[in-house]
């Protein structure tokens, strides 16, 4: 007879297996796109050439060649222009069989994932995000959930390889290295702020993960467009099918904007809780230091992308650095430094 806690661990292994299958399927899908140069992309590239290098996007792409029209018949013409400049590269991401499998298996994995988290919560009798193992488990869940929900609205399935890869890796590492038995928590953690503060922090981490995947793809695509010899081979030709670097920048920004607001809320709610539990709202505990660093890096990112000479590639590097800080804050800070945020051994 397995306990509820053990059931949660089994479900977590099942989740990791599902994500691993999805990862393979996403990768096969990408490999199936090698060497396919879509007509739409050529058009989009040609249209984008005058403005290449700038990250400013889309809304003001005004083609002077398009004759101004004043009659009602303008609709179809304008539609054609828009379709050529923006929409088609996204639409060109056709649904292959592996891709359909990948998305279905991801949804299945997400269901298992949710079950693993819920059973964990029952086994521990509290919100299931109070130690490192649980942070990683729930963080990976939010990353996959954000990815899967967003891909129902926007065509971002090309990010599947990166996101499902990160999620698989996270769960396997968590199960092997950081697993602890489900248990209650000490008095300092018995607060609804555990649900709010930690829950929002983990959600923000999941969101930053998806944005990170978008920015990495943006950097790769941009390098390939710029003719980087490392990315010139056929192996990387799937990059021709993903949205333009400018569109990816925009996608990353939208997701990061949500993540940044949530991270701000993480800091503020953490301060409220610290004021009650520790008698100070801010004390430069290592976790607080790194949460602050993350906040400042993403704030710098938001400023960089509107600063001349810093938008585009450079701004994307801020996302990479910021996400590295997020991961370090999640794991390294607990393992390397001792502070008030160390609980349950790690």
């Amino acid at each position: 007879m397995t306990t509820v806690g053990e059931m949660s661990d089994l479900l977590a292994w099942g989740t990791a297996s599902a994500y691993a299958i999805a990862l393979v399927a996403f990768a096969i899908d990408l490999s199936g796109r090698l060497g396919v140069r879509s007509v739409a992309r050529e058009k989009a590239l040609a249209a984008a050439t005058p403005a290449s290098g700038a990250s400013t996007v889309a809304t003001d792409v005004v083609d002077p060649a398009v004759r101004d029209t004043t009659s009602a018949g303008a609709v179809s013409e304008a539609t054609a222009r828009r379709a050529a400049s923006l929409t088609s590269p996204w639409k060109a991401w056709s649904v292959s069989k592996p891709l359909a499998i990948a998305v279905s298996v991801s949804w299945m994995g997400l269901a298992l994932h949710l079950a693993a988290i819920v059973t964990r919560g029952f086994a521990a009798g509290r919100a299931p995000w109070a130690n490192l193992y649980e942070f990683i488990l729930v963080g990976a869940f939010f990353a996959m959930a954000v990815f899967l929900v967003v891909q129902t609205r926007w065509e971002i399935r090309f990010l599947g390889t990166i996101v499902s890869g990160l999620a698989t890796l996270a769960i396997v590492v968590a199960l092997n290295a950081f697993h602890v038995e489900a248990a209650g928590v000490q008095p300092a953690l018995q607060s609804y702020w555990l649900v709010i503060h930690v829950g929002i922090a983990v959600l923000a981490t999941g969101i930053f993960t998806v944005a990170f995947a978008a920015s990495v793809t943006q950097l790769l695509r941009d390098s390939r467009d710029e003719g980087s010899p490392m990315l010139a081979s056929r192996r990387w030709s799937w990059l021709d099918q993903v949205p333009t670097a400018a569109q990816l920048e925009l996608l990353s920004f939208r997701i990061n904007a949500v993540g940044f607001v949530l991270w701000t809320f993480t800091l503020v709610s953490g301060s409220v809780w610290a004021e009650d539990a520790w008698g100070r709202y801010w004390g430069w505990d290592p976790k607080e230091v790194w949460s602050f660093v993350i906040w400042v890096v993403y704030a710098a990112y938001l400023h960089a992308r509107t600063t001349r000479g810093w938008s585009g590639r450079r701004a994307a590097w801020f996302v990479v650095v910021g996400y590295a800080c997020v991961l370090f804050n999640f794991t390294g800070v607990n393992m390397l430094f001792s502070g008030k945020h160390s609980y349950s051994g790690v």
Partner: protein
Amino acid sequence: MSGYRPEGIENAFAEDGAPAPASRPSGELPALGVVGWLRWGWRQLTSMRVALLLLMLLAVAAVPGSTIPQRPQDPSKVVEFFDDNPGVAPWLDKLQMFDVYGSVWFSAIYLLLFVSLVGCILPRAKVHWIALRARPPRTPRRMGRYPAQGARVYAASYTPAQVADAAAAHLRGRGPLPRFRVEQGTETSAGARAPEGEPGPVHVVAAERGYLRETGNIVFHLALVGLLVAVGLGQALQYRGQAIVVQGRGFANSVSAYDTFSEGPWFREENLPPFTMVLDDFTSTFTDDAMPVAKDFTAFVSVTDPAGTRLETIKVNHPLTIEGAKVYLQGNGYAPRLTVKDADGNVTFAGTVPFIPEDQVYTSRGVVKVPDVVTGEQIGLVGYLLPTAQLSAQGVRSLHPDLLNPVLVLTVWTGDLGLDDGVPQNVYELETEKMTQARTADGQPVTLMLAPGTTVDLPDGLGTLTLDDIPRFVALDLRHDPALTWIAIFAFTAIGGLMLSLFTPRRRVWLRVSTRSDGDGPARTVVETAGLARTDDAGLQPEVDALLAFLDTRDPAPDDRPAEDNPTPDDSPATDDLGETR
């Protein structure tokens, strides 16, 4: 001073927004006076580039505080670091590395950042203030170049004025605050610019929404300034005191009653609220696992202030608030009540001694100093309290934090306690330099073991030691920061402003309605509409589509609508810039 644009891309709206920074011809260096240099410096400081640089510096500068021990957080770790790294530590100390967040260089970065912020945001606020009162931009003559478009043709019975009124009503919305700022007007079709076949006046509607975007941006940044000021004021006015209170005892809220007390420079002692507090009882519950985990701590106290005496509880996460000051339960442990008598029966020590818990099972270490001996040398007792003692071959250890089988294990030292030198001593450490340990005949240290209510003889005829009972003690932390409310207000205002600035869509919608007749055909009402967004905006085309759909519902004669000119909605493809699948 127009460089500070955190929220979006300055392209589409730049035409009548803030002017783009003037580009300076390179290689040409005009002679600058002092004022010129100051102005140049100010312009640099308030530029976005420098703000960005300062943000990056701030992130990097914050890191050492997590890797090097910090004096305000953990002074003992700093001492340890000095012992371990005698070569590097003094140099790091000169660089203020042991107090990073109070250091000159860290302060310089964030103060410059805030000066830069203020220097940018105030001019922007002024620009925005003017923009808030400005009218929506004129309806363009040609709609073809805008990212969102739509058109309709109605029968002439649906007059241009009716269409324009309906559109304006729809854009304003029905709520108390208008969705769009709307301006209606007519243009005469006189002049060479008028297209062919446009008799009668042209009705135009210009609408703009999303002013809250910039408002939120400004509010966010100003709230950060407010936050910094509030934190600074709080630091200057706050005070904090720590006291260890044994069960049955109490303390009065005065500076001298605290074991440690720290205050900001503007604190005045008369600001301390007058009250006394007695610890009546303390309860703790632990799990019964092999490694017991605390489940609950509760201190029961009686608080007496000018209004009377009342009973209160203090828990972890639930501080007690007394006139703005918060009292936190920061620690707890056992304080054995001990009596020492000398060989003649004189009581040389009687009282409680807090033993500090060192692990999860409350193996607690404590020191008893007996300086007031009648004759002979002073006595020091050092040892451990084991709440649930278990004897084994390896020695004694505690199994559980509750007092299930308490045993006090002490070793005995005699000599000079060093208390008369005037040098402050740690009450939890015994200075053994001038003392000797009592040993048995075979040279082993004498170990005394006591259960509550027992008396043992001290070695070498020093007298007796009695463990009367073991009450609890709590470590209380009293803190008052008058700026807390303001800090909270500014923090939540900042979040609100941030959300507005990141998520408010800023859009313009234009509508142009005219009556037209092409050649012999019947007169028709032709509607053209266009939308423009400040940043990429997935909702722009739906906004235009919704406007046209609303106009359709106001058509008095929908059956007369010339069908061939109106595409069915399904013909218009999904046009969101992010390839939204609809």
